[in-house]
């Protein structure tokens, strides 16, 4: 199970990328899921399609589109660099963006389903008790959809840890900078005699994935039990 320095670096980077992508993506996913579940507005289908696009596009294509938009010559990339000094291309930040984009549809789907399962009549009841709209959301809707948010977070995190195609296309495979677990495994398998090291990384990838699923199940069950009133 022991990893060499490069292995640890890949693991550390994967956790950093996954955590960043999940934490940044979650609020946005919550908002988009809310719009899709509860609101009707012109162009709703466009938003819906755009959110789901990374799920159906080849990851390489998504990575290429990110490169075009967020590369140092891309419009969004140049804007970010000039305004915030933030460079995404070939940096871990870019890997996080790629992971966020790829995991986003999974987060939105899980949260949207949870929101659609909330009885709007409970929200009406809260309003009759004097709660303004934001308070209704914070005190009724949010606690009730918490299992969905957790499920979405875990799905997004797992996707971020495992993301390969878009990441390698967008930010390449630079050890210590953009080489996450999957890229490291891929690299090791390209060189003769790298299999031993690769298998250890594969084991770690499995541990992370299974751990995430168990953690989410445990959290979701606790929240569900609280909500069901057991």
């Amino acid at each position, binding site marked *: 199970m022991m990893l060499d320095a490069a292995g640890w670096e890949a693991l550390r980077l994967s956790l950093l990328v996954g955590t960043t992508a999940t934490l940044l993506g979650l609020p946005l996913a919550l908002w988009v899921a809310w719009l899709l579940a509860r609101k009707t507005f012109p162009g709703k289908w466009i938003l819906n399609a755009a959110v789901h696009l990374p799920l159906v596009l080849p990851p390489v294509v998504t990575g290429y589109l990110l490169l075009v938009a967020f590369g140092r010559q891309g419009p969004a990339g140049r804007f970010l660099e000039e305004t915030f000094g933030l460079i995404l291309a070939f940096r871990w930040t870019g890997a996080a963006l790629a992971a966020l984009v790829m995991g986003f549809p999974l987060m939105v789907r899980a949260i949207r389903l949870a929101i659609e399962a909330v*009885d709007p*009549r*409970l929200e*009406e*009841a*809260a*309003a*009759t*008790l*004097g*709660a*303004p*709209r934001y*308070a209704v959301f914070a*005190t*009724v809707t949010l*606690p*009730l959809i918490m299992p969905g948010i957790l499920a979405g977070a875990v799905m997004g995190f797992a996707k971020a840890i495992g993301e390969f195609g878009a990441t390698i296309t967008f930010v390449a495979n630079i050890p210590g900078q953009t080489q996450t677990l999957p890229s490291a495994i891929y690299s090791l398998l390209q060189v003769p005699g790298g299999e031993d090291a690769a298998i250890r990384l594969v084991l770690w990838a499995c541990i992370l994935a299974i751990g995430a699923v168990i953690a989410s199940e445990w959290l979701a069950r606790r929240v569900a039990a*609280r*909500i*069901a*009133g*057991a």
Partner: protein
Amino acid sequence: MSLEVDIAHGFLGFSLAARFEAGPGVTALFGRSGAGKTTVVNAVAGLLRPQKGRIAIDGDVVLDTKHGVDLPVHRRGLGYVFQDARLFPHLTARQNLQYGARFTRAGMRIGEDEVINLLGIEALLDRRPARLSGGERQRVAIGRALLAQPRMLLMDEPLAALDAPRKQDILPYLERLKSEARIPILYVSHALDEIARLADTMVLLQNGTVAATGPLFDIMADPEAMPLLGAREAGAVIEVRVVETDNGGLSTLQAAAGRIELPGVTAPPGTELRLRILAQDIILSKTRPDGLVGVNILPVTIKAIHPGGGPGAAILLDAAGDRLLARLTARTLETLDLVPGQPCFAILKAMAIAPGAVGRA
């Protein structure tokens, strides 16, 4: 305290044009399913925006489509008790009760302990809604609405989802609420037995319009309102006082026209009760009948005869100031040769009055 409603709304082939006022006490909004009751109460609460109209609470206009006034639900200061309690499933009964307190800007009208006592929910406070029975949930929901310190309580068929015994369990709490909480209530129901026990004023809704409105005792004894209430369910409500309880299974009640003996009354002597006597349970006789057992006989005078559509006629009787309503077939009417002003005797079977028809005055 007053509520003024004057609204018009139409959807899917249904149109509502209702105008009424509700004063202090309990105002019952009565009508068959589809009469527009829930539309009205939702418009008052702000959950539905009527196409046209004006709603004011104590002169405070909460809706006026002509002047673009439409106060959002959370700022109307009205409590709403729904048919399906709608308790928050993730909160305990106590947390549900306390939910509205953090938003209320009005002064405290009623305290938490008072509400808990009034509704008898002390033992339920730490439970979540999933572990409460239907009746318990509804009591907590009533408490939750009260503790938001509303100006008025809206209750939309609060007992309709409960079975008959559960309903009888809750009615006494509602009677206490009415007499102790001193909050005006708009009570929506299609069940006349509930209304007879609780309401002070009645608004009859039929096909989206107000067909009759007035004090409960007047409407219930109005022969013209009989077809609106349903001939089988129509019946006047009178006030009586308990004289003696459980005398061989029967209790003696004092009405203006005489004593009435009924089974199943448990209230202690001296209690004022409301008694609803169904029109179809009254038999009329021109002479005082002799040798009948198990009946109450009250001397009455015929005040009005109101031939209704169909085979029946509604007879309004004066029983020493109390009004009673009887229903006879046109044929009986002819045979007996009854005319207004004529004294006769109302015969009332003791077992005919359901325990549910007896409530606190």
